[in-house]
């Protein structure tokens, strides 16, 4: 599946273009109108048709669709997604300013998820206690079925309101990161744990394990050194996919924890049908996804030297 870098880049460009185009089509077909949403205000009584037309023209929304698409695509290629119709700020700036806060919770969330999922899978498959094994096997489906906002509110209630350990809101420092990251990590970690446990069990049933054990390796050595290494590949692939889910989860998590971030920006932009901002978010998310998958692909050979050989051979012969 891994091939030369130029081909990967070409794929990435196609993905980004598709994301841009699809979002344009969908947003253009949506009923409603960002200009109306903005001018309507609370009263919404004093706006005339002429006002709306003028404002629409100012944002180029009165051009034919094809022209709008061309203009926007050309600008987007240069990194300009236009101005937010709701607030007048640069759409790309708006999104980029919100990015660090989201990256902080999703990054930490991913770390927690890997640790949490890994621990469930490794302990669950290693233990000889039947009840502990069963208990750990039951956690992933449970973790995955809990609604994130409910988990978030519960965590706030216990750790912030009752125990007073962390603030319930804001984005200042590590203390405000922990709970949102845990909230994001629970469903994600559950999936990682489930997949990893399954592939660990598969690996442990393979004949080579018998060989390693026969050679006198300890159970722990077999588990860590051999089975886990081979079982990690499917789980790693999954991490790539889940990174996207984490980003989606931030919409709810950021609202519950009163944080700024991509999720909040997206939610309000969608509500206001603020096309430039929504598009900037979609293209950024696509870019993020492409990069994560690229990173996962590059990590494969590190875990499995056989793949490394293949990549080198192909890369050499492919060019």
């Amino acid at each position, binding site marked *: 599946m891994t091939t030369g870098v130029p081909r990967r880049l070409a794929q990435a460009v196609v993905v980004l273009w598709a994301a841009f185009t699809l979002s344009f089509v969908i947003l253009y077909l949506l009923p409603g109108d960002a200009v109306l949403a903005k001018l309507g205000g609370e009263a919404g*009584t004093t706006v005339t048709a002429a006002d709306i037309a003028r404002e629409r023209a100012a944002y180029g929304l009165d051009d034919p669709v094809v022209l709008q698409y061309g203009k926007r695509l050309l600008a987007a290629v240069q990194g300009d997604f236009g101005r937010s119709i709701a607030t007048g700020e640069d759409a790309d700036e708006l999104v980029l300013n*919100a990015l660090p806060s989201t990256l902080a919770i999703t990054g930490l969330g991913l770390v927690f998820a890997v640790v949490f999922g890994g621990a469930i899978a490794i302990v669950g498959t290693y233990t000889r206690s039947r009840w502990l094994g069963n208990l750990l096997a039951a956690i992933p489906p449970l973790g995955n079925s809990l*609604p994130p*906002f409910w988990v978030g509110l519960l965590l706030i209630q216990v750790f912030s309101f009752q125990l007073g350990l962390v603030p319930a809101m804001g984005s200042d420092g590590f203390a405000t990161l922990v709970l949102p990251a845990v909230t994001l990590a629970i469903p994600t970690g559950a999936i990682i744990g489930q997949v990893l446990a399954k592939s660990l069990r598969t690996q442990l049933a393979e004949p080579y394990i018998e060989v390693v054990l026969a050679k006198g390796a300890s159970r722990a050595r077999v588990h860590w050194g051999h089975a886990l290494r081979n079982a990690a590949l499917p789980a790693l692939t999954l991490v790539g996919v889940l990174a996207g889910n984490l980003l989606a989860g931030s919409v709810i998590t950021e609202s519950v924890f*009163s944080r700024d971030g991509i999720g909040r920006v997206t939610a309000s932009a969608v509500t206001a049908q603020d096309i430039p901002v929504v598009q900037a978010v979609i293209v950024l998310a696509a870019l993020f996804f492409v990069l994560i998958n690229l990173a996962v692909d590059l990590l494969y050979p590190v875990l499995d030297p056989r793949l490394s050989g293949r990549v080198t051979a192909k890369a050499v012969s492919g060019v």
Partner: protein
Amino acid sequence: MSTLPLRAAGLLAVLGLAAACGGTGAATGGTGDAGPPRPGGTLRLGISSNPDCVDPQQWGTNAALNVGRQLVDSLTDQDQTSGEIIPWLAEKWEVNADSTSFTFTLRTGATFADGTPVDAAAVKTSYDGIKALGPKAQLGNGYLAAYKSATVVDPKTVRLDFSAPSAQFLQASSTMSLGILAPAAYQKSPEQRCQGEGLIGSGPFVFESFKANQQVVIAKRKGYNWGSPQWKHQGEAYLDKVEFRIVPEPGVRTGSLASGQLDAITDVQPVDEPQFAGNGFTEPVRANPGVVFNLTANTTRGVLTDAKVRQAVLKGVNRQEVTDTVLTKNYKPASSVLGSATPLHADLSKELAYDPDGAKKLLDEQGWVPGPDGIRVKDGQRLSAKIIFSLVFNQNQSVLELVQQQLRKIGFDLQIEQRTTPETQQLTLAGDYDFIWYNTTRADPDILRQLFSTKAGNRSKLTAGNPLDAALDKQAATVEESARRPAAEEAQRLIVEQAYSIPVFELTQVWGLGPKTHGVGFEASSRMQLFDAWIAG
């Protein structure tokens, strides 16, 4: 996305209630033994939505106006109880006979935060600036619809001229939407001012910082000494700083207040209100003036073309049940199309009494007979109309579901249809609705002209020259209460009698204050006034 977190918030409220009863012993005393106000300190205030724009001249949302009110002063102020217009930056004013020319005499000594004086030239620059914003001034655009020009008579005197009678302008001059900004502010673009850049007013607080979706911080203006006469003290504000923290989840807002992470919050949800009853917390409450939440009928569509049908719907709504069950005792059933806090409000509660029998009688007379499913039919047509609404107020859905059940009892089928705010705006402007559901905050009866006059919003799609138009024009033409009151009352009576609008309940601001927080007040439009607010040490 909005209903599920809401339910979760309800659950949290129950948890929080248990916590409030069991643990926190911090809540002591009440507000009575608060002692004299103490200067200093920071008020941490939880608000429910991002202001988007902190320039009060541009945005019309509560989140934006609650911040903006603290930063700007206005030419006049409005007495919260009497609704009377009183001096502020202007000591006095004169209005010509047909309310087209307003001459203000400014007080001396007031300055903007950049040190420049609040003089006639600055007032002119500011008003011209608002006019230039056009529809970007979401509320000011309406207030200044007929604004022609401002003339600097002398440094202390400024005259504002209008092309049509604008009695409403006197009240508008008291709002933060027409608050005065320093001339330097207009060298920045509207977008920059939205983010606080160049947002220089003469108010008791100055803008400090705005982080979207996080917080807005304002700080005390040193040397401020030109407060409105209706405020409880003069001189500088008590608080050093106010941090408006943006906390969208209602459950987190209430929990943060209960656990002492916030000093005050806005928008306490009906389900959370019991938490703050009688345990040291105070709950400031004030109904919004302006048009109440109502079903405005499009009189040109379907069954609603018949006045008798509309009147039946008006009688078939049990307003008391709405406030008793879906809302709380803090919310009032509508007693007119205007809220009771609006100046010149007419008490029409008798006309708005629940009368299902009267409703059925009207429908019987019109030949609507109950069909097999209880909904009335006539000539194969069902007695049915659709209402469009958006979730600007969290309880809207529940209120409308209850109204739907109530109307079912008289054989009327109300179909409720939730839309996004932009969609509602679009349908409203296009006139593409049977009923629309909304409210509008404005402490002046002229809001009825803006919504119902055939020369303005005309939301009921009436024909020009109807008696309502005449009454609305009459109240717009004079600031004299003796002449204005009968016209305004007639307008309210006509709207209710003809059931152009079916008023339901008054939107109410419900806030929560922690045990140490005092003096957080309402101005006449039920927006926040923090000048007298203080925190016990």
